[in-house]
């Protein structure tokens, strides 16, 4: 093969072991090294709900061409920190899968690294993951220097460098050589990190949360940066306190976000309705995981869509935006803040475990925010109507204490000053004000690329999807001809005419969704009347891979 062909090959390494053995960290470091070398890397993380033991693994898939997803079989290398890894993944190996494991772990082929002398060299057992990473680097032909640079900046403790070299030197290394691809402007980050950064870029003042997988990483990420950017991170007694505090803070003038997963979101739903009536801006990050209920809490799903669209009693405008990769997550987070604060609405940022906890390689140019952060405040001198009835339904926002006049927020139906009303005509007017606001938001969203099309724009076979399936679909698309992928970015307000335009002449329209019912199909039907029963669904708590999609599309 020519160099160009080789480097565009898609390669996958699985690293597995017990929770606590540093599997995830090893994979992340490997990813960073590869990106540093100019490769595109996708790092998938799979872990059960436990703290020590069990079986965790990561799949690092990389190529010189774009990669947005992982493989769930046919690994080139399996790095097995324990025996269970070998056993578990046997069915998924290729005939020539190469194993790297510490001595003592039985492997079908490959190499066992003798770690018995490590301790003497000052390398603690905890660094076995790094030792194996060294051997892996050797095997793949990763330049030592680049690897060490990354290790130095990523892993605290000098022993890690030693550990890497220990493995590198003992490794049998024959897998080839990974050349450096001269590229610039590559980012390696998870969806959750991108959301955290998007919040910072939006000028967040307060992040309020109660821990819940898979939204917790945003809490940790922001907590680690609150000093640097001077904002507040608040963990309260439960999600109900969280969301009501968020509304209080937002009313008082802070730029606020809350983050949670399905169960916590459910607890927040009463207050979402309060958002609707009070028109106090609110941004909610809903990180989906496998339900219903506690379900399979560290795994992924896209099954909260209809709930996100309808949570909260009564009728009020809302935005539901679903990014498909970290670059989008960054931009869409900024849009979620923008829309919430500009129009005093609820913005729900709908992500999931797969987007949130997988590492993606993004290019510089992919980050291109469409909006600018702002507080959107007015400071009138005399009279102020907290709910002034305007043509576009949007009342300019002020905050208490910033002007002389009282600023009010209320859960009751109210007149323009925010005083309670039970009069039919005023109720009707306020309902209509909010309906008009929904229209105004719709128009604003239509300027924000609410729908994207990938692949052959003229194709008459269409994959329709949203959110984190994007990666696997894009990677599958490369193997399909005559197909396009219509990705719905804004699910509320729904881009109906754009959507209908994309499917009107289609021969086949397939819904791809990480759920058991294909909820986006219902949303499409609800918004446009367009119905398709052609669905590729996955609901075993695992994310899609390109292969899975291709098989199901063909089969």
């Amino acid at each position: 093969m020519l160099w160009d062909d080789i480097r565009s090959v898609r390669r996958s390494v699985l690293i597995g072991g017990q929770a606590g053995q540093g599997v995830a960290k090893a994979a992340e470091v490997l990813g960073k090294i590869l990106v540093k070398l100019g490769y595109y890397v996708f790092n998938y993380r799979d872990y059960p709900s436990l703290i020590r033991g069990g079986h965790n693994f990561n799949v690092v898939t990389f190529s010189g061409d774009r990669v947005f997803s992982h493989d769930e079989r046919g690994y080139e290398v399996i790095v097995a920190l324990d025996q269970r890894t070998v056993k578990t993944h046997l069915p998924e190996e290729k005939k020539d899968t190469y194993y790297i494991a510490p001595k003592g772990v039985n492997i079908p082929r490959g190499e066992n690294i003798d770690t018995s002398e490590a301790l003497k060299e000052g390398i603690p057992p905890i660094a076995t993951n790094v030792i194996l990473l060294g051997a892996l680097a050797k095997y793949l032909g990763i330049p030592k220097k680049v690897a060490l640079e990354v290790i130095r900046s990523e892993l605290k403790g000098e022993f890690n460098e030693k550990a890497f070299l220990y493995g590198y030197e003992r490794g049998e290394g024959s897998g080839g050589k990974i050349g450096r691809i001269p590229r610039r402007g590559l980012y390696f980050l998870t969806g959750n990190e991108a959301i955290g950064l998007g919040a910072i870029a939006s000028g967040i003042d307060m992040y309020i949360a109660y821990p819940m997988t898979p939204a917790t990483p945003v809490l940790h990420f922001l907590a680690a940066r609150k000093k640097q950017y001077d904002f507040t991170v608040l963990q309260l007694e439960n999600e109900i306190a969280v969301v009501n505090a968020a509304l209080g803070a937002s009313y008082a003038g802070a730029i606020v976000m809350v983050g949670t997963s399905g169960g916590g979101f459910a607890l927040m739903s009463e207050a979402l309705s309060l958002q609707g009536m009070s028109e106090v801006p609110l941004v909610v990050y809903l990180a989906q995981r496998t339900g219903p209920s506690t379900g399979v809490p560290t795994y992924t799903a896209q099954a909260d869509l209809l709930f996100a669209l309808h949570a909260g009693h009564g009728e009020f405008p809302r935005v539901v935006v679903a990014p498909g990769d970290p670059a989008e997550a960054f931009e869409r987070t900024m849009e979620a803040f923008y829309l919430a604060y500009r129009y005093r609405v609820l913005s729900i940022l709908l992500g999931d475990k797969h987007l949130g906890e997988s590492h993606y390689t993004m290019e510089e140019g992919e980050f291109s925010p469409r909006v600018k952060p702002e507080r959107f405040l007015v400071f009138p001198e005399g009279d102020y109507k907290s709910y002034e009835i305007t043509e576009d339904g949007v009342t300019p926002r002020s905050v208490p204490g910033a002007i002389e006049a009282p600023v009010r927020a209320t859960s009751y139906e109210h007149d323009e000053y925010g005083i309670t009303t039970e009069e039919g005509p005023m109720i009707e007017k306020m309902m209509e004000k909010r309906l008009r606001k929904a229209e105004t938001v719709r128009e604003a969203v239509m300027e924000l690329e609410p729908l994207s099309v990938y692949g052959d724009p003229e194709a008459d076979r269409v994959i329709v999807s949203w959110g984190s399936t994007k990666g696997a679909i894009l990677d599958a698309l490369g193997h399909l001809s005559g197909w396009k992928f219509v990705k719905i970015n804004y699910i509320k307000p729904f881009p109906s005419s754009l959507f209908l335009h994309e499917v009107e002449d289609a021969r086949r329209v397939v819904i791809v969704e990480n759920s058991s019912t294909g909820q986006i199909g219902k949303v499409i039907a609800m918004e446009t009347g367009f119905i398709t029963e052609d669905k590729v669904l996955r609901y075993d708590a695992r994310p899609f891979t390109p292969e899975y999609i291709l098989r199901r599309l063909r089969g």
Partner: protein
Amino acid sequence: MKFDLKKLDTYAENTWCPGCGNFGILTAAKQAVAELVEEGYPLNKFTLVAGIGCHAKIYDYININGFYSIHGRVLPTAIAIKLANPELIVLGFGGDGDTYAEGTAHFIHAARYNADITMVVHNNQVFALTTGQATPTSERGYRGKSTPEGKWEEPMNPVALALMAGATFVARGYSYDVKHLTWLIKEGVKHRGFAFIDVIQPCVTFHNVAPYVRERMYKLEEVGHDPSNFEEALKRALEWNYDLDPKAKIPIGIFYKVEKETMEEGYNRRIPYYKVERKVDWKQVLAEKKII
């Protein structure tokens, strides 16, 4: 300068029952605001948060900043308002159903957080606006439409709980003693930290304890109670358990008062966030994730 109390009126129609204890709380609250403004507190910084219930209509009746929240959520809302803008003077008005039933968790934790806010609970020992069901503070045996044979379990003692939960200012008022209540609210506002005032508020329609309370009430200030003594405070708090025991004595006044670090201090909040100009460059923010 004399503050014109009328400035605090709104055009909303007052829909409390004639004689309702809420009027006393409204008058005291307005009077407290007026006097505080006279003492130099800026009127436009007063911000009230109300729950849902008869009590909460106070939102419509005082012409200051207000957040008419949902049932049970006064405290998280109020605390966060304070954190977002420490310049605001935050007054919470909750009901007993609101604060001790739906909002129990927030009540217990707010005591610990010690944000510098004042929480006034209109404790009529009944869900009034929903027509008279028993709340946690209703006495044993209370007959409402959901407990026709009488409430079964013991009442909750919010004053004792607040003390045990760590509140730094714990008081009880009586809604028909407006002057005393005005004083309590002012003391609450001046207290640096979480000021909790349980107000016995007779509900003339569903739970009129005025005759019972009037006879048994006494003022802690008048018996030489030392509000810096936690053990004494606890003892006083346990004197009345909210049952309508004919032999009970009902202390009102300040049970306990102590200075501790406030939540705003703990979170190092000084400047209102709305005044903070953030010049974040999104490219710089992203830079930490740039590999090459």
